[in-house]
């Protein structure tokens, strides 16, 4: 029993260490833009009186991603929302980018892409609107991945002239100022059906096809839904909340220690274990932690405190009714279990509803809550039971007042 205690204490503290070792990991935790600062924008087509097709949205997404590549914004999240016909973009606004203008960045990302085909001297030979369709395919000859371009009639004429002039030379394809492909012309192409060969895999081929299609996208994208938070504002909020959290945690621990003594100490360790576990559950799968997520952490700490309070109260009661320490502890845990169980299960139900229904902030709240409550089962119920049981094997720790019983006796 003593060994188990030692082991558990060790696990609890080791867990803490993992937490602080991972403090780098914790600082690598993905924070929502409400915490670290950043941009979240929902782009919809401008002046389009129909819903955009899935292909069009995919092209729009590629335009935005290519531009973000050019701006070196790699830590981003671009998703297509087909039901609402929009593209959602999230990216952080780093604190060292003082010159960064997020409003301008949002505007530029949504502009129509200028797609140009240029000869080696930089003359434009073909434009985006000359391409009627582009798609990825597999070569009939050798089974390699290719991109097929179908040109419009004017496009075909222009391209026939250009390819005739540029055999064995390169034609470079640009989106805005970014080079996206520079195939070499093998033969003159007169029928308006061009092929770009030697694509590495299907994904690369699809990506290039989407980029080429973006040149003929009939609309530009505007961001009517946008959320911009400066990094200083976000980081301040995070630091202050972490400080407030630590103070609140310390106060709760002091209170528990003062009121319940030994079980209080165990409760503090169990709570620590719970919080560490919860943070790991967030940082390991790189789940985005937002401010409502922190609210979820607070709620589950509250539930954790409660589980320990219920147990400690019960032990006190059982001691007052004249039971021996050992059986009081057993009965306390046994009796308290059903209420802790039911309470936690209902909160789990609420958190699952949030995960299923919610997006963004509600999802984050639900997830942290769920992790917290599960950790509460592990730490608040199982671990603290083992700890109290084995601690009570020590002779010096068997005095009833250590369990708060003296209050009742008085």
């Amino acid at each position: 029993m003593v060994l188990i205690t030692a082991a558990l204490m060790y696990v609890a503290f080791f867990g803490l260490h993992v937490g602080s070792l991972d403090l780098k990991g914790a600082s690598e935790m993905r924070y929502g833009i409400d915490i670290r600062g950043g941009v979240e924008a929902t782009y919809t087509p401008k002046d389009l009186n129909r819903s955009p097709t899935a292909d069009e949205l995919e092209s729009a997404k590629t335009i935005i991603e290519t531009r973000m590549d050019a701006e070196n914004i790699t830590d981003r999240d671009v998703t297509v929302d087909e039901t609402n016909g929009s593209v959602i973009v999230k990216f952080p606004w780093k604190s060292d980018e003082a010159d960064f203008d997020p409003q301008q960045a949002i505007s530029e990302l949504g502009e129509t892409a200028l797609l140009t085909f240029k000869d080696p001297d930089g003359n434009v030979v073909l434009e985006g609107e000359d391409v009627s369709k582009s798609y990825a395919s597999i070569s009939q000859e050798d089974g390699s991945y290719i991109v097929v371009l179908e040109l419009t009639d004017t496009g075909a004429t222009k391209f026939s002239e250009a390819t005739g002039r540029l055999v064995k030379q390169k034609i470079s394809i640009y989106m805005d100022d970014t080079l996206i492909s520079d195939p070499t012309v093998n033969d003159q192409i007169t029928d308006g059906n061009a092929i770009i060969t030697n694509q590495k895999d299907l994904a690369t081929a699809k990506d290039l096809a989407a980029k080429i299609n973006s040149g003929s996208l009939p609309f530009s994208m505007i961001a009517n839904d946008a959320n911009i938070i400066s990094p200083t504002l976000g980081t301040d909020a995070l630091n202050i909340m972490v400080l407030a959290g630590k103070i609140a945690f310390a106060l709760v621990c002091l209170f528990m220690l003062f009121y319940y003594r030994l079980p209080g100490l165990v409760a503090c360790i169990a709570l620590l274990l719970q919080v560490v576990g919860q943070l790991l559950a967030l940082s390991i799968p790189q789940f985005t932690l937002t401010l409502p997520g922190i609210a979820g952490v607070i709620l589950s700490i509250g539930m954790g405190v409660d589980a320990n309070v219920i147990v400690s109260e019960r032990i006190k009661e059982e001691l007052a009714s004249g039971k021996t320490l050992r059986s009081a502890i057993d009965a306390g845990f046994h009796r308290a279990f059903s209420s802790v169980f039911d309470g936690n299960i209902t909160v789990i139900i609420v958190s699952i509803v949030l995960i299923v229904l919610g997006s963004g902030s509600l999802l984050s709240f639900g997830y942290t809550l769920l992790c917290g409550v599960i950790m509460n089962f592990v730490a608040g119920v199982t671990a603290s039971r083992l700890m109290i049981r084995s601690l009570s094997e020590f002779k010096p720790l068997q005095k009833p007042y250590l369990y708060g019983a003296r209050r009742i006796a008085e």
Partner: protein
Amino acid sequence: MKTIQFFKKRYIYFAISLCIILTGVVFALVNGIKLDIQFQGGSVLKYTYVGEIDSEQAGNLVEDALGKPTNCLEQVTQATGQKMLVVNLADYESITSQEQELITSTLTKAYPDAGLEFSTSQSVQPSTGARFFKNGILAIFLSFGLILVYVGYRFRKIGGFSAGFMAIVALFHDAFVVTAVFIVFQIPLNDSFIAAVLTIIGFSINDTIVIYDRIRENKTLMGPKTSTEELVDTSITQSMSRSIITNIAVFVSITVVYIFAQIYNIESIKDFALPMMFGTVSGCYSTICIAGPLWTMWKNHEAKTKLKRA
């Protein structure tokens, strides 16, 4: 331990709760319920600056440049003395990033010495807001429904459905109190509201379950002859110290968070913590003084009708 007679004083408790809810309703009628732009759509931009800016004049400048009704406010963070200019667009329709750029350039040109720096902005389309709000409310009600089913099943020994139903009444009570706090303090309803309501529901249902659990246990211990009134009062009294201690712990934590948010002017946290403070108290109170006595009344009524039939 002396049993506290909660049931006898039930009408006092009901009156107190009614008063609180009525206060909320009166304030709602007088001030109206404000929805945040998160839910109803609209735009707000914030800039930090130094020196003096006449916010009314700034509002007019933006209005002229943009052709949309605008008003500006000045905000000062207590801890740092940081000044902030808040630009509110009165329109529910959101503005584009291009329009945002126009606002920024108008202001920086008009006040070149103020060191205006763009800090944050939010722009939401009414349709997006409505969808978000609908999902939040749906989540709250779906949670209520599932809680009813679960509590009904787990506490079938003490008349599951009635127990579940009374738990929901207590939850509505707490949700109302939290909403009333938002209305009285004129905090626009935003996602903090949904988060606060859900958190309070979580705490309150937990409180209620702890007491039901005690009733379930005592029902076996005290035997069938005990009146419902005595059973419930005893159970509540026994779990009293737990209810108070847990809620003190939570209340203290939330208060610390609130104080920090208030000093450093972190709005999203402030809007969450203040209703939470009231909600915690309400959650504890509604369980002890509303759910328990109401359930007793239900049970007594049930017993009476059974007698009549017999």
